[in-house]
């Protein structure tokens, strides 16, 4: 159950990253590429870091989706 919830939350988080990237790029365009790059970078790193932490706690020590 816990693993299923963690997996679903992970999928939702990465879908959120994709949605954020599309929203930023489509709405702001290429007015300021550096300013738009930073939130996308931050969201990817955040999603990955939370995913690493959850994987280590919820899944077994070898990591990876199981």
């Amino acid at each position, binding site marked *: 159950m816990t693993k299923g919830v963690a997996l679903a939350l992970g999928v939702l988080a*990465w879908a959120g*990253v994709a949605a954020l990237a599309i929203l930023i*790029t489509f709405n702001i*365009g*290429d007015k300021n*590429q550096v300013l738009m790059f930073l939130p996308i970078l931050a969201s990817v790193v955040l999603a990955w870091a939370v995913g690493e932490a959850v994987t280590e706690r919820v899944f077994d020590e070898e*990591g*990876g989706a*199981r």
Partner: protein
Amino acid sequence: MTFFRKAFERKHLEDPRPVQAVFSNTWLAPLWLIARLYLGYQWLLAGSHKVWGDDRWIAREGPDGLALKSFWERAIAVPAQGAPPIKYDWYRDFLQYMLDHSWYHWFAWVIALGEVTVGVLLIVGCFTGLAALAGATMNFNFMLAGSASTNPVLFILAVLLMLGWKVSGWIGVDRWLLPALGTPWQPGTAVQRVERRLPHLRPHERPA
């Protein structure tokens, strides 16, 4: 015969350590992340202009793909003086064939949505190697059609990301997706579990 047997006997050639460190080691994953995000962002930006912008290629009043049609027409034009944009006759014939059959109506959708998809997949790091391959294919075709622009730089980045497919998506979805799916020669954890539950789906056993 001995010569050929010796020349083509199976030898496993190791990559130099620096090459292994760059393309197979996760400690350089942050560098791959920057390259991946830059490339993905450029594709998403290019795709957004075609899907969303004022001069968009698709979903506008009138027939779709007229912008692509004029791009192809400019590309296949052979000027009276000077060099034509396309160097290869077979590629010019290919574009002419697509123009003659009005393929630009649906091909504009393929390009516009393809660019957005490649951009999103690269940004989230999902099937990074395959997404980079799709991007490189588009760059290659744009360059064959005589459009340089940013394509050479994006093409080189895509080739590097393909070479580093094992680690270029490490800070991304591939960190979990690739171990779960594995490869044809080494099935991942999710595939092994499916094989255990559904043994009749298992391919032929490998010879010992």
